[in-house]
């Protein structure tokens, strides 16, 4: 098979070998731990929000290259973006993964997905889709938790005033 058809695009291998944003944040608003029983993949992810943005995201994990590379790509894309943009991107990536190899994305959406588009080939392998989604799902729940705890903090400070 030709290299361009491979599920293992060079971008994926590069991120697997040299992952970004790997490490534990010392200051964070939420921490989540997600596992994918198919491959035994694991990701522990922390986020810190500031002014409605994902100010920092750090993750550690182990498992197959698809799960680890996808988490690295995701982290590059969402750090510094607003929470709503990050969640919107997560939705697009989910759509891509559920497309079974036939994504219906606009030029604009493809642009937004950036390096994450390299995972398109994974969508043809239902057993591996969970691997690619692992970090994205972790990010989504971490952001939800951080947002909820920020809201309850501000609610309690307001109540205290």
């Amino acid at each position, binding site marked *: 098979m030709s290299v361009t*058809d491979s*599920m*293992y695009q060079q971008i994926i*291998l590069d991120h*697997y070998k040299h992952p970004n944003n790997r490490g534990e944040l010392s200051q964070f608003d939420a921490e989540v731990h997600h596992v994918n029983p198919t491959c035994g993949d694991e990701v522990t992810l922390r986020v810190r929000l500031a002014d409605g943005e994902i100010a920092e995201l750090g993750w550690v994990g182990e498992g197959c290259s698809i799960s680890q590379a996808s988490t690295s790509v995701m982290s590059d894309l969402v750090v510094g973006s607003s929470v709503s943009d990050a969640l919107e991107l997560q939705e697009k990536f989910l759509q891509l993964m559920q497309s079974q190899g036939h994504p219906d994305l606009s030029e604009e959406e493809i642009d937004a997905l950036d390096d994450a588009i390299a995972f398109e080939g994974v969508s043809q392998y239902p057993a591996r889709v969970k691997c690619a989604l692992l970090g994205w799902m972790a990010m989504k729940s971490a952001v939800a938790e951080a947002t909820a705890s920020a809201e309850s903090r501000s609610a309690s400070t307001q109540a205290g005033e």
Partner: protein
Amino acid sequence: MFDVEVIRKDFPILSRHVHGVPLVYLDSANTSQKPQAVLDTLNDYYVNHNANVARAVHTLGSEATLLFEQARDKVAAFINAPRREEVVFTKNSSEALNLVAYSLSNASTTPGAERFRVGPGDNIVVTEMEHHSNLVPWQLLAQRTGAEFRYIPIDEQGRLVDSAIDERVDEHTKVLAFVHQSNALGTVNDVARLVGRAKAVGALTVIDASQSAPHRPLDVQALGADFVAFTGHKLYGPTGVGVLWGRYELLAAMPPFLGGGEMIETVDMSGTTFAAPPHRFEAGTPMIAEAIGLGAAIDYLTAIGMDNVQAHEAELTTYALQELMKVPDLKIIGPESPLDRGATISFTIKGIHPHDVSQLLDEFGIAVRAGHHCARPVCVRYGIAATTRASFGIYTTTAEIDALVAGVIKVQEMFG
């Protein structure tokens, strides 16, 4: 004369291409491919003879019944069963093993079945290398009855720890269930040793022969166990059919597992009496075409000769172990010596997840399995999440093993 190139021509699927390259199918331990003779038999049955068995007096019904019962004769001869009535058709190995476990369970409440009862103070023993199909049914039986569930551990080389056999199997052991050839490690267990110990303490013995039946001559009398289970789809036959062989004297005294049509002697609203084995354990319309197809697979294997199959695969195993062990950072999980070992080789590669290995090999046209192979305790034992597993069959060639080794090296280069 065993000629693998001639054999390959009997398996139409082997000429398939995947991802634009010729298929190298190294997943026969998962399921085997089917020879044309089996496919033709299935087709001929439905085209010319289809009817229900044992119920219809018309011509088609008689033909179907005859073909189905002839398949039983073929199985009986294949495993050297003393009596054809000892061959029970099930849907697969899992059902065959559950049949025994549930029959023992039903013995708790069946008058006259006291000798099959299992309860508090008794124990049930399996091994650490069991497929979940020969582990979970016994774990469940222990939970239902209050018996203790035990296992014989494995060592670094994937062999049973011999000294543990006499310790774990004791005078309170009611059942010893073990795999003949491990699907995860390739290990072939010492049946005489295990059955000998079980007999000495009066325990029933159950052998899971799912991975041995396709690869070596199987003689239930020589094995000496009470029950032997295997599955048709790994034996070059169709899915949906398996076999439980049991000693007639035991089957004739055991309570049924499933109730329904065909398994009764007479039914009254006040109670039912049961048919003699094997029909007692074959409730409902059986897998008629599949059993007949399995008979065709057995004819095919018998014509080749199981001794020849074993010799061919021993050669492949020796060659594959030798070649794989030359690959740097590749670790065999299971025996590294071809002695007492089957043609199923699990391995790990440093720094590369087994799912990545198998996915990439697939892109090169090579089908292997990755995962815990339904024997999760084996992975737990070795502290790994999964292995990559290559398994061979009658149609496997040394050129395919070369392709595997080259594929593995290519994967290492991509990840290096």
